[in-house]
């Protein structure tokens, strides 16, 4: 700590400004480091009880809510099986029964991932879950789905079998037709492998994390025809 740090006056926080504090730091001190400021913003935005709640609104009681979680855990299985596949190399599943089984795990977890994601999507559509300043939640979910589709597509391209030969041959026309083939060459196995195992999963992961944080930040959207609890309270008070 420098002399100037010691001399600097400490501003007392108003209750509305207070964020989280670390051990050894007084609750009323304004954070002066990047870390402290970040923590304060984080704790104000997503305090632990919002991030990992033990209670949810009573309307969160439908099977449709499970599909968001199922999508996430499917993604975990997809990534885990994909990581095992990377250990064996790009032809492992052709030459080893264990490799083929792990390839099957990757294949089926991807199928489940998309099934759950589509059900989750339709559920959120019919609930018009973008209400109440939740449009960014919808948008990040939509981008996550598109990024997942592109990732899945590159996965099909790197199977190094007849199907991937055919998909590469057919899809190159689509990308070439709008000039994208000059940048993204689906018949370049090496480029597709790197996109599939590195860049695209990273993109999906980042967007999914943002999506989930937004869900926690905004909370679960109330039913379209829910009676406003505050109006009910006001009505009761007026009656009494």
């Amino acid at each position, binding site marked *: 700590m420098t002399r100037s740090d010691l001399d600097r006056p400490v501003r007392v926080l108003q209750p509305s400004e207070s964020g989280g504090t670390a051990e050894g730091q007084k609750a009323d001190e304004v954070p002066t480091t990047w870390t402290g400021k970040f923590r304060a913003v984080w704790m104000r935005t997503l305090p632990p009880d919002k991030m990992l*709640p*033990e209670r949810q*609104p*009573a*309307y969160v009681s*439908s099977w*449709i809510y499970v599909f968001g*979680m199922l999508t996430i*855990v499917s993604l*975990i*299985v997809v990534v885990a*099986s994909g990581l095992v596949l990377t250990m064996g190399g790009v032809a492992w*599943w*052709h030459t080893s029964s264990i490799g*083929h*089984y792990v390839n*099957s795990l990757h294949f*089926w*977890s991807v*199928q*489940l991932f*998309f099934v759950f994601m*589509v059900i989750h999507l339709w559920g959120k559509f*019919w*609930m018009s879950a*973008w209400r*109440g300043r939740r449009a960014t939640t*919808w*948008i990040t979910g*939509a*981008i996550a789905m*598109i990024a997942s*589709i592109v990732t899945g*597509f590159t996965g*099909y391209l790197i199977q190094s*079998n*007849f*199907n991937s*030969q055919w998909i590469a*041959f*057919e899809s190159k026309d*689509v990308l070439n*037709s*709008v*000039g994208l*083939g*000059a*940048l993204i*060459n689906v*018949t370049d196995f090496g*480029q597709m492998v790197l996109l599939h195992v590195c860049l695209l999963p990273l993109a999906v992961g980042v967007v999914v994390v943002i999506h989930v944080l937004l869900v926690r930040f905004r*909370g679960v959207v*109330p*039913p*379209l*025809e*829910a*009676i*406003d*609890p505050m109006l009910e309270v006001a009505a009761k008070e007026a009656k009494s």
Partner: protein
Amino acid sequence: MSTRHAVRDDLDSRPWTGPTRRYDILKEGAIALAIVAVLTFGLSALFSSPDEPALTFKGWSQSAPDNMYATMVAEMSGSSETAGYGPPYNVNSDGLSIGPLALQKWFGVTHPIDAAQDFVIAPLQSQQQPDAVTAAVSQWTSASADQRTAWATAYEDALNDPAGANGDATKVPAGDYGPVPTLAAAVVAMASSGAYDGALASAGGHFFNTDNTKQTMLMGDGSYMDDLATAGNLQGNTWGMVNETGSWPGQQWLATYSFWYQLPMFNNEDPNNTVATVLTDNADAIIFAIMFVVILLFVFLPFIPGLRSIPRWIPIQRLVWRQYYREYGKR
């Protein structure tokens, strides 16, 4: 905004102050993970996964030698799909366009392919050949471009003449074909031995090569791969985009994209219907543009009047929240 909507919006945006229920996100996640893991391991054990071996030029030369032979002739004459593709492989056509927008040309030739040189001459030159083949390669390389095209076109016409050879190289009448028949036969022979696969894979003398552009393009120039794809329902106009080899599920999530390829206007075979021909010829570019708009509508759906109101008009949400409405009522 009406008062009713303002109140509604306020309820949607502010933290919920109504009744709550117990919720354990980690427990839900753990149970979900267990279910998905069991499903994944079970489905994999029961149904395995597709893995039909990749096609090879050796396989092509042995299964359909006449087709491979004719394809090599087409590469030399410049009539193959690759030879006349345009960007990003060559400048022999403009490629597709969306109305006046010829996006395919914008980036130019980034993956150059000289069909005759890359598919016929270079592979033959990469390995020791019989004297007749070496002489044929020399004759080809020392001839002018016009002469080469004249030889190959004359031979291609004679080979494919329905009233003559009709694809049978042994029945082609004598003519001024230069080295073309020798070169085409030499490639098929080389492929039959397996050497051609290796020659293309190590093209340019590269030890490491993961770019299969040339192999993929050549494989698609013949009917060998195309016929197998047709037999497996993998063609675009038979929902091939979402189909997989065998009976396994494919990329079902591309169904919206694949849908457009099923429409008659993108599958026109009537040469007199000029409008439909333009649409069909440029289908890939037009459908890409359509899907771009569809994706924008999907991503920005919360802001699109009409689309965002569908859930209010068709109240499926009452099924979702039926228990809550039953217990706590609804407006």
